[in-house]
């Protein structure tokens, strides 16, 4: 789960990483009030989970509360890479002398947390990594060792931070960032830029924070931060229904059981010349009700023209899936969709029989994955 800048900063604040004074605002009036409370010039920042908001006009300096209200009016409703701005973070404007970059992320290859630090912050870090790899210090933390102060020293000295005051502040932030990473079960904690003010004060000016979904049960307060309104409504609907769903851009609706098989089904549909409309995974247990939910999600996409069920029963029982398909035909308006069904594995024969007995015209049984994909592609034309 990704957090907004202001949410990540709230977690930073909890572990003691210095951030600027700020307020959340959802209307221009709130932005003005926030600016009044903060005092002095403020920055009005669009809260969207996408990069490049600065270039898109989503971050503006405001001299006074009236200006903040005006800027907020401009930014609210802005579409930044498909994300509509509905929240603003109004924060005290910072004088910036230097911009650094600091992050800790989970490196799945090494199976260890990985720190990255460079004094060349404020830009896309991939660019630094490519153009000036020596400037980007990378350092793993061994989980059985935990955080030790030398890690911060290697980062700070390695990147060539010269000022002792900065060294000390950054070392403290490194340690706190690791604490945030572990305590909040993060997959990524990133500060870009980590600024140094003309007075030599070090502060996190932005935050990127991703929390492990599987650990949210231990952090109910973070789980509540999820902004369901901002997500794609179809994906939100899928989440509510407990269906793993990713919208793609084609016409063939796809439903499999298990991520690997579902992904492979998408590939095979593309391989035989079709355009998959989505990735949809019933998951391991898939019962009849889950099938109805999945079909409800898939058919909400107006682009879908045909549907391909590719089921290989393990724990999932094919008879349950067949029953679910018939149930969906009863409950949803699905008469316009040709549904290609391939069933194999646990109780496959019963499943096929249930569908055959139902005698529905728009149900097209196929024996193999490849044939099923071909048929679904044909029927989508």
């Amino acid at each position, binding site marked *: 789960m990704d957090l907004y800048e202001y949410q990540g900063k709230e977690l930073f604040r909890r572990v003691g990483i210095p951030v600027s004074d700020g307020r959340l605002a959802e209307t221009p009036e709130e932005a003005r009030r926030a600016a009044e409370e903060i005092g002095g010039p403020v920055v009005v920042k669009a809260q969207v989970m996408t990069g490049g908001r600065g270039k898109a006009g989503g971050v503006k300096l405001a001299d006074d509360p009236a200006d903040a209200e005006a800027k907020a009016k401009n930014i609210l409703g802005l579409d930044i890479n498909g994300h509509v701005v509905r929240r603003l973070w109004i924060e005290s404007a910072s004088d910036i002398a230097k911009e650094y970059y600091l992050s800790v992320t*989970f490196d*799945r*290859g090494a*199976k*260890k*947390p990985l720190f990255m630090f460079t004094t060349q912050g404020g830009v896309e870090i991939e660019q630094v990594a490519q153009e000036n790899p020596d400037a980007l210090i990378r350092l793993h933390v*061994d*989980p*059985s060792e935990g955080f030790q102060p030398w890690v911060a020293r290697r980062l700070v000295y390695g990147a060539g931070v010269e000022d002792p005051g900065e060294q000390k502040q950054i070392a403290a932030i490194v340690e706190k960032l690791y604490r945030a990473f*572990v305590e909040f*079960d993060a*997959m990524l904690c990133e500060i870009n830029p980590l600024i140094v003010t003309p007075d030599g004060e070090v502060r996190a000016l932005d935050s990127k924070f991703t929390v*492990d*979904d*599987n*650990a949210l*049960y*231990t952090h109910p307060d973070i789980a509540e931060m999820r902004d369901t309104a901002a997500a794609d409504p179809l994906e939100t609907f899928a989440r509510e229904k407990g269906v*793993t769903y*990713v919208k*793609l851009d084609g016409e063939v609706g796809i439903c*499999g*059981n*298990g*991520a*690997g*098989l*579902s*992904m*492979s089904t*998408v*590939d*095979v*549909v*593309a*391989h035989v010349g079709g355009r*998959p409309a989505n*990735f949809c*995974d019933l998951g*391991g247990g898939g019962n009849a009700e889950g099938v109805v939910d999945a079909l409800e999600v898939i058919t909400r996409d107006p682009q879908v023209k045909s549907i391909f069920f590719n089921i*290989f*029963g*393990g*724990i*999932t029982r094919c008879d349950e899936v067949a029953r679910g398909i018939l149930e969906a035909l009863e409950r949803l308006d699905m008469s316009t969709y040709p549904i290609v069904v391939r069933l*194999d*594995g*646990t109780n496959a024969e019963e499943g096929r029989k249930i569908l055959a007995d139902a005698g529905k015209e728009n149900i097209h049984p196929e024996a*193999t*994955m*490849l044939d099923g994909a071909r048929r679904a592609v044909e029927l989508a034309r």
Partner: protein
Amino acid sequence: MAIIVDNDTRLVVQGLTGSEGRFHGLRNRAYGTDVVAGVTPGKAGQDVEGIPVFNTVADAVEQAGANTSLIFVPARFAADAIYEAVDAGIETVICITEHVPVHQMLKAYTYFRGRGTTMIGPNCPGVLSPGKANVGIIPAEIFTEGAVGLVSRSGTLTYQIGHELTQLALGNSTIVGIGGDPVVGSSFIDVIAKFQDDPQTELIVMVGEIGGDEEEKAAAYISEHVTKPVLSYIAGFSAPPGKTMGHAGAIISGASGTAQGKKEALEARGIQVGTTPTEVAQLVADRMK
């Protein structure tokens, strides 16, 4: 021979009295696996259709001689169950449970890797050595005994490929679902090294998917250490960059995580990659002739 589970497997099911534990534990026993014990705290003295239940894994080891554990406990208890098994001297731990928090697994992984324990999963379908033992949720009836070692990050995709192999009259030495989570107990390399040493296995199929760089690493390992033929299938060619498709593991992380990138890395090492499950099965059949 086969790998990881076989006729010497003496299985304890952690969470045997839960609904899933009971269903699959009994199914595994019905297949012929030697299920010697179950563990559910507070339920010692009970039994599940004749399988004795103990309070602790240590008791199951001492009193029933268990050497392999199958974990079916809820996610929030999974790390504890893994530590309990490892510290009780269990040699092989297979964890089916999904949704285990990454940080918990990270710590557990670092711990058990140092002790020679073989760990498979979490979030995996388990391990099946056809004709010998089935430990987990793999539907054994799809597979037959044979010479193809199959290792996969995905469950159902493995069944699909196993099914295609069976259609072509090809059997398997062992089918290993390593699991799709960011941190799993055994990597492709760990399992492929075991297949390389297994006399029954003549050919290895690696079923990968987008995300991470395990396939790329395996390719490098194979070209240096594996003399048996290896074929591969990768899922996720049509996945849009940056989108998660089910497994937390399937997050695109740089070019190395894409299906195309993996295919190229494998082919550069001389490992053929089938485009569909059907094609990969056909490639295996060609090689096994």
